[in-house]
């Protein structure tokens, strides 16, 4: 229980998000371009973090399908900034030893001659620590 509270605290601090501001309109999920790829949707991230129900989020692929496009941040009427929460949860996972989602040895297989290295750098920043 204590760990759970700590994790929530850590996520709130790292993200700077106050989920209590959410009025549950769902505009974040309405606007999310990656919605169909996500098991948990932006509004659920907000609600579940608020409730301290973070464990399922840690396990979810949803963490790696958020595009960080900031559309939810831009359009949220309450300034909740769901993308920041997703980022903080993702960091909580990949900052653990050996928990990187993307490993250097995976890279060569993913390459394509035209791919700008910006994509690799970005993905590394997002998926590994």
């Amino acid at each position, binding site marked *: 229980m204590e760990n759970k509270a700590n994790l929530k605290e850590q996520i709130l601090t790292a993200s700077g998000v106050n989920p209590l501001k959410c009025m549950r309109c769902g505009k974040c999920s*309405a606007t999310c371009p990656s919605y*169909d790829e996500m098991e948990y949707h932006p509004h659920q991230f907000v609600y579940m973090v608020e409730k301290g129900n973070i464990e399922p989020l840690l396990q979810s692929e949803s963490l790696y399908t958020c595009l960080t496009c900031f559309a939810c941040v831009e359009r949220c009427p309450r300034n909740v900034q769901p993308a920041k929460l997703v980022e903080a949860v993702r960091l909580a996972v990949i900052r653990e030893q050996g928990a990187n989602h993307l490993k250097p040895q995976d890279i060569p297989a993913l390459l394509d001659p035209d791919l700008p290295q910006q994509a690799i750098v970005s993905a590394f920043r997002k998926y590994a620590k």
Partner: protein
Amino acid sequence: MQRIGVFVCWCGSNIAATVDVQRVAEELKKEPGVVFSADYQYMCSESGQNLIKDAIKEHALTGVVICSCSPRMHENTFRKAAASVGLNPYMVEIANIREQCSWIHKDKATGTEKAIILGRAAIAKVHLNAPLIAGESPVTKRALVIGGGIAGIQTALDIAEAGFEVDIVEKSPTIGGKMAQLDKTFPTLDCSACILTPKMVEAAQQEKIKIYSYSEIDEVKGFVGNFSVKIRRKARYVKEDICTGCGLCTEKCPQKKVPNEFNMGMDNRRAIYIPFAQAVPKVATIDPNYCTMLKTGKCGVCSKICGVKAIDYTQQDEIVEAKYGAIVVATGFNPISPAKFDEFAYSQSPDVVTSLEYERLMNAAGPTNGTLLRPSDGKHPHTIVFVQCVGSRCDGAEKGKPYCSKVCCMYTAKHAMLTREKYPDTDVYVFYIDVRTPGKNFDEFYRRAVEEYNVHYIKGMVGKVVPENGKLKVQAADLLSNEQLHIDADMVVLATAVEPDPSARSLATKLTASMDTNDFFTEAHPKLRPVESPTAGVFLSGMCQGPKDIPETVSQASAAAAKVIGLLVKDKLVGNPCVAHSDELLCNGCSSCEKVCPYGAITYSDKEFRMPDRTTALRRVAAVNPAVCQGCGACTVACPSGAMDLFGFSNNQIMAEVDAICK
């Protein structure tokens, strides 16, 4: 030196049980200036009051201290008693030895000691009291209503019914306001025009009401009972008293491409126009921004065609100055522009409309004569998506409005229902965050929309609207089924937030009436004085005070009228004499006091003074209007020179109390 009488009340045992009242009376008798001291069981009783009156007469008292219950209980009782025997009522001070002494202390010695100190403080204050006479001012028996929407009309009608003259100042060419643009009203679905226009006609025909249409407020001076107002009657280039409203000119005017504001710019009117068929006054107005004659001096068609020669291209704005006893603000609202929320593509597709535009599209007198057609191609829409809370309930000013606009849930239900009724082949979706329907028959109405009319209410918000290939691709969240919806809609209707009319801000400054951060007028008390502004003599009616539907607006309009009538029946107003006053000899003219006065009671003028060296000098000094000042004392502290002081609570009086307590 004052001759002071001290009267210590037992209040039965309420005081006497924990305060030795005799000792208090004895001790206070020793204070300088005290020539009489007594205690009695019930000072507020008739015999108690007689004791006070007799002592005032017998001992020629110039000041009275009553040690009793809170002044909030009986200050007036004792002041009246004193006044009845010729002592100025403001020479009476109360020492509160019940609520603030006997009732909170159990130990008699402690209570007695404190009661004596409180008595001393009151005596010290009375020494510095001076007789105060409340000013009187006459009341001009005429009211001004600013804004001619349903709120203004109702207020004016009620005041006129009671027999007082009322002027309505309306900035557009006709009264009627937003209600005139509505198609039907919830929850009864009456035709808005059918219930409004008779009231407009009544206002026009009521002898006591004068309507200044196409007019604005230039300047407000004076105070409650005595306002002096400059009204600017804008040049309409048509002689209002001659024009018959036949409308011929509005058909012949060659300038046909003027966006028609009555239909939210969805069709065009001419440069000379009558806003709508039932306009009051039914008089044409020339729009100077579009009239070719006014812009280039060439045309004159309307003048040639007018049978009664009502056109006057040389007309100028005219200033009317009039006096009023009371002013009612009824400036109403506007829907906000959805331009800031372009994820809904309002600026990208004509088929994305606001609710008020939709209202006009549904209205028989609207641009489509009441047939629901898409603005882009004039085709009948089959799928319509309504989006609630556009710009309402937002966090932070740049996002939108922090408040709930209150009327959108109901009018959206109305729109959805009417659409389904007229066109059962349409699919209607309403995206909502919460459906808020408190009000008589309101929730029932909403339920009918769902249950009888099969409107699809979906809990969630629309995130993006993409106009593509003649459709509006709506991407939205359905929170209850946890899916993202993609709807190909023909029209999207945005329930945009309401905001106070932009003219309200400058009007508030002219009236020195306060506003909240959203530019709604603030009321004198949020619960108990909801139709009065904190500025005496200024009353609030309708949306200018906060979001309201029509029944609430009409209730408030009548309530404001009742308050106005209550003011106008008086011949004279008696002021509170405990007001601020400025010592002209000390005043520096710095304007600090003027800045903090919430009532605009302080004015500055240059006055000539004889200086000690016998020269005269012009100095800028402050003067307080005692009829406007409410006596808060903010100015007395802002004044750096100590020129500003407050009758009844002067610097010296309060310091004397401090000294007496700290002895």
